[in-house]
């Protein structure tokens, strides 16, 4: 990604910022509800899923038996949604609903990391891996009755690239790198030039897409709901029509995004009342199977409320906040190859034992250091005192995975995560080495009367706060005085971008399931906050870190080997490890934990487990709901 032109970089940034925001906010929710805290990101939302008690209330049903008219609907919960427009949604709460309404060419089946065809019947790749030709599935209709054609995809992709409402244009223009032209935006920058996207309808059922260069995760990118099909002209003749005068979206757009979304998914939109509930119902003409009547989400933010709802047994899936979670109630019966664990949890407060499963997610939480401002010994002291294992146990009651690499286990090169960390982690694998930390600080000239002061800035999250308190206590003994400061998320990112943070907390959730998506954050040139396109706030350079050059070189190797071939993958994998080790040496990111996704559900619900992409990417059409007890 180093050779992107200026404009796309900016767009890229803007959007990645959005992703980070989504993660951190999810982390924040998770913080309140540590049940998910670990399973933050997607996992958060998933485990928070609970029953819509309120709907039962109004149906006049009694809490125990929601045996009213919607007994074959899934009763779930969601956090606050923002939009139902696939190209505008950046949060998992919206994404969860969008996933049910819209289909794309490819799909992560049950949120697993490998993709399969969805609306694409088949695809072909050119020899240089730059041109993809997709043949569409026959007989697919939109919820408005129209048949799906290649033109719908051309329109949908054009929206993704050029709609003023699109918050994911970097997905198609930069990450995927579909060919396109740019023009001056009147502010000295470059912007996408409408209608120049390299996506063509060869005939009604065939789409051809051309990339600027080969990219290893093309199919994976296309599985995102941002690439979903919407009917041609659904929100205006061209994307530019979506914005009315005065910079506000048109009426038609607002309707599409909040009250009348149309897709080809298994469920039709039914209702969405801001801050209260949302509902979708089974689409009778869906080309596949829909085994239930629909899905109802109660919108609940408060973790304790979620817990109470779940314990009311209105829920099909319940949430257990950390405070109520008792690790001794878990019994794991088996574990599959991808690290998913299956078993039961209980008895819960209401006496029932729930089914349980957990899965590692593509999600890493870290402490970042502005390396220009925080000296290397201090960063190393942080790393020495940090015992990831203890953190996960203390703060999450073990509901998370300690992180030693920025790359999460499911996508770590060659599946070598654990071994590499155990053998080579330089700051004590699962150890808190306060003495070493003190020593490194004393060597740097600090002492009890000459404490180093460092500012810890975090978004509002009880989990980070708990960790901060533990770290603060430990660092105090290593002659570091750490001040804990909480900032609203927007402020945190803004100050980071200005280079005004010292130690800060953030998380990263995968855009596509490969390590480069994570490691771009520690590519030193992209961490320079004096540039407009910094994607993390490290300011990592040879002036403040001995391994900066190693990381820069490794990223260069990654950039030169992006093709979806085995030899390129080999080269990338080696470079990934180089970058992880460079980060260990200089402690730019202190990785803390990886999210896991958990689900606790009652017996009457029959639902597939989900995978590393998270529960928000799971479609519910194969779930069945029996009699609630």
């Amino acid at each position, binding site marked *: 990604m180093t050779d992107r032109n200026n404009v796309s970089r900016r767009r890229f940034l803007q959007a990645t910022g959005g992703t980070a925001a989504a993660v951190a906010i999810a982390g924040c929710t998770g913080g309140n509800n540590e049940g998910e805290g670990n399973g933050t990101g997607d996992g958060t939302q998933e485990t928070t899923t609970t029953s819509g008690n309120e709907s039962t209330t109004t149906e006049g049903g009694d809490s125990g038996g929601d045996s009213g008219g919607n007994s074959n609907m899934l009763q779930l919960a969601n956090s606050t949604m923002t939009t139902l427009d696939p190209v505008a949604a950046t949060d998992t709460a919206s994404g969860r609903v969008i996933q049910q309404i819209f289909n794309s060419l490819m799909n992560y089946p049950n949120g697993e990391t490998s993709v399969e065809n969805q609306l694409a019947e088949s695809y072909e790749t050119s020899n240089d891996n730059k041109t993809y030709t997709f043949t569409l599935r026959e007989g697919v209709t939109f919820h408005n009755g129209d048949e799906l054609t290649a033109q719908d995809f051309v329109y949908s992709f054009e929206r993704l690239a050029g709609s003023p409402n699109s918050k994911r244009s970097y997905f198609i223009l930069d990450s995927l790198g579909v060919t396109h032209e740019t023009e001056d935006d009147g502010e000295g920058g470059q912007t996408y030039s409408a209608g120049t996207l390299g996506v063509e309808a060869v005939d009604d059922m065939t789409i051809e897409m051309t990339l600027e260069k080969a990219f290893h995760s093309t199919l994976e990118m296309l599985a995102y709901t941002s690439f979903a099909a919407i009917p041609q002209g659904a929100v205006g003749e061209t994307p530019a029509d979506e914005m009315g005068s005065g910079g506000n979206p048109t009426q038609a757009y607002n309707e599409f995004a909040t009250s009348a979304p149309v897709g080809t998914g298994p469920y039709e939109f039914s209702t969405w009342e801001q801050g209260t509930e949302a509902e979708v119902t089974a689409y009778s003409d869906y080309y596949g199977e829909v085994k239930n009547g629909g899905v109802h989400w109660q919108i609940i933010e*408060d973790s304790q409320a979620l817990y109470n709802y779940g314990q009311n047994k209105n829920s099909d899936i319940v949430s257990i906040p950390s405070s109520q979670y008792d690790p001794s109630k878990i019994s794991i019966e088996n574990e599959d190859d991808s690290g998913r664990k299956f078993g039961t949890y209980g008895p819960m407060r209401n006496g029932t034992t729930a089914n349980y499963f957990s899965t590692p997610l593509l999600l890493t939480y870290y402490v970042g250091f502005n390396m220009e401002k925080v000296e290397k010994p201090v960063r190393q002291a942080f790393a020495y005192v940090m015992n990831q294992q203890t953190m996960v146990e203390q703060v999450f009651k073990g509901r998370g995975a300690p992180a030693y690499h920025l790359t999460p286990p499911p996508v770590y090169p060659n599946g070598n995560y654990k071994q590499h960390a155990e053998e080579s982690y330089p700051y004590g694998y699962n150890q808190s080495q306060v003495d070493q930390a003190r020593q490194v600080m004393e060597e740097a000239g600090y002492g009890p009367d000459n404490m180093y002061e460092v500012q810890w800035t975090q978004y509002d999250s009880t989990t980070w706060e708990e960790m901060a308190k533990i770290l603060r206590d430990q660092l105090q003994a290593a002659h570091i005085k750490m001040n804990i400061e909480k900032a*609203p998320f927007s402020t945190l990112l803004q100050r980071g971008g200005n280079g005004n943070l010292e130690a800060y907390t953030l998380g990263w959730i995968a855009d596509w399931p490969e390590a480069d998506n994570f490691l771009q954050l520690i590519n030193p040139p992209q961490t320079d906050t004096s540039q407009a396109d910094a994607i993390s706030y490290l300011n990592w350079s040879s002036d403040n870190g001995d391994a900066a050059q190693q990381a820069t070189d490794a990223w260069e190797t990654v950039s030169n080997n992006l093709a979806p071939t085995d030899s390129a993958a080999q080269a990338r994998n080696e470079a990934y490890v180089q970058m992880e080790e460079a980060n260990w040496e200089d402690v730019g990111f202190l990785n803390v934990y990886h999210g896991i996704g958990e689900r606790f559900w009652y017996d009457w619900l029959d639902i597939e487990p989900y995978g590393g992409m998270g529960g928000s990417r799971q479609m519910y059409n194969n779930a069945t709901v029996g009699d609630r007890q």
Partner: protein
Amino acid sequence: MSRWQYFLRRLLLSIPVVIFGTTITFMIIRLGPLDPAAAILGPGQASGPRAEELRRQLGLTQPLWEQYFDFMLDMVTFNLGNSWVISSGTPAYELILIYAPRTIWLGFWSVLIALFVGIPLGFYAGLNPNTFSDYTASFGGIVWRAMPNFWLAIILVSVLSQSEQLIGWDWKTWLITTPVVTPPRLGFMTEPLALITNPSESWPQLLGAIKQIAPAAIVLGSSSMGNEMRIGRTAVLETINSNYVETAKAKGVSNRTLVWKHVFRNALIPLVPIITGEAFLLIGGSVLVETVFAINGIGYLFFQAAIQGDLPLVGSLMFIFILILVGTNILQDFLYTVIDPRVGYDES
């Protein structure tokens, strides 16, 4: 100065109060260190050209006094502007319409509960001074009032959520099934006719909404309930010991008439500021109580807007609060003017 002149003076005085109060709000949000453009744009762009552009669009590059006049003009003409961060682009007016009914419902019941529990208890205590029940009621009221609202709310939520396990009685399924937290469903408000046309569905909904708001209303009403009780007790005591009641007693007026006609009416006067003063407690307290009970009302909206730097929304909400509070004050003065002969002599 006649009573009505005094009232008129108070009325006139409220104009500069609204203006000055709004000015203070403006000063806090615009002169304070929070940068609205940065709050909207988020990462890495607070200093870029887009930020400059946005500042220009938002009018932040204009001279401060111009911004001030624009702000004041917008407020007075109820042009409340759009939210920037919470729900970007949504008019503040719309957000208020979504969030306010829950708070109004909460406020309504907390005033009602406070009135119908606090005043009778206070009067009862006043009529039976220095008895065991007086002490119990008085002491209970004092302690009740001293409890921090948010703490009381936390305890209540936890206990009610698990009432079955803790006290063997299930609050959630009592009468009608309701959750302990989250906003009540107020659909019947928009269609009050449904209470007649579709009673089987809307009455349970109404009942559910009342039951669901009750714990929050009790908490929010708690401090004013205590106040009303104390003042009510004192007022009844003072009235009973006053000359004219003694006279009436001597004249042989029956105890019943005495209490209802002479004591209560006069004892109500000092309660007026307490009752109108509830508006202050309700608006302030709604933040914490709504946060704990997960009632996404206007207090919660304000808190979220404040911590996320959604300054236009904060400004608009503050302005509305000021109007409500000043309005309540005027109402209080009006009530005084009508019922209390003393006003006007006080202030010579």
